[in-house]
């Protein structure tokens, strides 16, 4: 039985003359890990921006669980259960690791305007932050300033910040970008674990084909803004058009 959680309908985004996302209609099923792959400039990040409300489409709609969420303001996205991470690290650089995650946890509560009480009294957010930092293995660095972390740890922090509010959908834009190769499997295993144990829906952009083929339930291939193919990992690796257009040598590497 198919249970569609995110559905886009004719999604289109133009930047001047450039069509970054061109008539993209995808359905992402609840509880699956759905990867979006495609060469650089294919429009994957723009697609993420459209679904998470960071930018508004030129045309088309986004539905979440049947509700039209196309034009909700960006700060409402998380309240609809969509958490989104960034390809380019996007943190609070001068705050501590803990405070970055604590802020992410606090955002989903309703205590933001309790200006007369110390934030330390709201221990729920701190314990949630501790929980998530333990999960991603950053708890020892809790009191470090975010901008002082090595790149790999910044990626983990980025992930921790979207885990903290416990969203139903995790949209991860190249979560392993720039990470040392030996750290990648660990992070992917963590994502997979969060997804299966919490019955979450994960939308993943990832360049490592081994990772994509091994972990995805479904794959959408984008090229030049449009959807080129969609299917299970087996179907995608067997797709001649995809091989020609994109996988090419990468695919051979897989062996």
């Amino acid at each position: 039985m198919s249970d569609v959680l995110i559905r886009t309908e004719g999604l289109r985004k133009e930047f001047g003359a450039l069509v970054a996302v061109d008539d993209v209609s995808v359905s992402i099923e609840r509880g699956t890990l759905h990867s979006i792959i495609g060469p650089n400039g294919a429009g994957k990040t723009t697609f993420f921006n459209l679904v998470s409300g960071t930018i508004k489409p030129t045309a088309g709609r986004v539905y979440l669980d049947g509700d039209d969420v196309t034009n909700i303001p960006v700060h409402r996205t998380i309240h609809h259960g969509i958490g989104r991470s960034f390809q380019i690290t996007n943190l609070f650089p001068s705050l501590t690791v803990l405070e970055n995650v604590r802020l992410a946890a606090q955002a989903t509560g309703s205590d933001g305007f309790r200006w007369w009480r110390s934030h330390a009294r709201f221990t729920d957010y701190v314990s949630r932050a501790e929980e998530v930092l333990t999960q991603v293995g950053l708890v020892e660095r809790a009191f470090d300033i975010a901008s002082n972390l090595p790149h790999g740890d910044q990626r983990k922090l980025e992930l921790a910040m979207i885990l903290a509010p416990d969203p139903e959908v995790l949209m991860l834009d190249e979560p392993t970008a720039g990470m040392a190769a030996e750290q990648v499997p660990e992070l992917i295993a963590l994502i997979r674990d969060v997804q299966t144990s919490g019955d979450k829906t994960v939308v993943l952009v990832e360049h490592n084909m081994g990772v994509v083929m091994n972990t995805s339930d479904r794959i959408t291939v984008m090229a030049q803004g449009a959807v080129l193919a969609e299917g299970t990992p087996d179907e995608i690796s067997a797709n001649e058009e995809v091989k020609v257009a994109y996988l090419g040598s990468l695919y051979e590497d897989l062996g």
Partner: protein
Amino acid sequence: MSLVDLATTRKPWIVRHRLLLLGVLAAVLFPFVIAIVVDGAPISAVWENADGNAKFLQGLAIEVVVLALYAMSYDLVLGVSGLLSFGHAMFFAVGAYSLGILLKSAGLGLVPSLLIVMGIAVLVALLFAVVLPRVKGIGFALVTLGLASVTGIIISSSEFKDYTGADVGLQGVPSPDWLNPTDQRFRFYLVSMGVLVLVYLLYQRLVDSPTGKVLVAVRDNEDRALMLGYSTFWYKTFALIVASMTAALAGSLHTLYQPIVTPEVAGLGFTVAALLMILIGGVGTVSGAIVGAAVFRLTEFYLDRWFEGLSNLLIGAGYILLVLFLPYGIVGTWRTRSNRIGEGRSRLARLLSGSKGE
């Protein structure tokens, strides 16, 4: 010890506020010490408000309190929330003139006047807030500068001379007998100090609260704060309202204390004064505003007395050295017990260019 314990356990209130408590004690003792040591007068000279150094220096301290409240409100806007406003003087000027007009022309009592002034302060803050979503960074600076300039023009305009005194200034504002700045100097001094302490504690609370943490997040990376789910507009509006009320309170004290209020209080120069005070104390530290106001007013006063014509030059040079070599200000440097000059300079540059985040 768990992370939660580490992050949420605090020293007792009295330990955290020991400097404040010492400061309050010193402030209360100060007039008596001056009366005895400098004036050679009996301690009763203080509550009898006898002329002398004790009375004069209390007056200077009242001016410092007015400036400290004003600078603290600017620190909330710029230092904590990262909003580059060049029109902050408007908050002060509206408070100063509104109170003066309500007391003098409308003949209202002090308490109802102050309540109305606070209401007006909220409206002025909302005027700034309307601009917020439309212009960012330096654009916000220019629009707020424009709003303050218009205020200055209205205040100086001869159309409203009967109310504002136009470019001559507002004079003859009646002060209540119980709070007369001359006859009841000591009481006025204690009331001002009390107001400052209360506002300071309130600000400490605010900055440490969930709200204050979001304001800092907005300063650091507003887009990320939005993505996390914070409606940053309302947080910034909140900061502007609190700051406007505080600056209006400072302006009100100014009007009550000074025999004359002039249109300069709406000018860019007076916003720059707020900036200088928080630079001296440490941008974003809150308590730095008090230290900065004291240093600012006292250097201005004594350099003027000792060097006359040269004083402005010396003050200017002092500020340049300060920004270059003590970018975290006095309190900021003291807190971290270190002075990372390069990092501090780029932090200031980021704040003052109106661009947030990396």
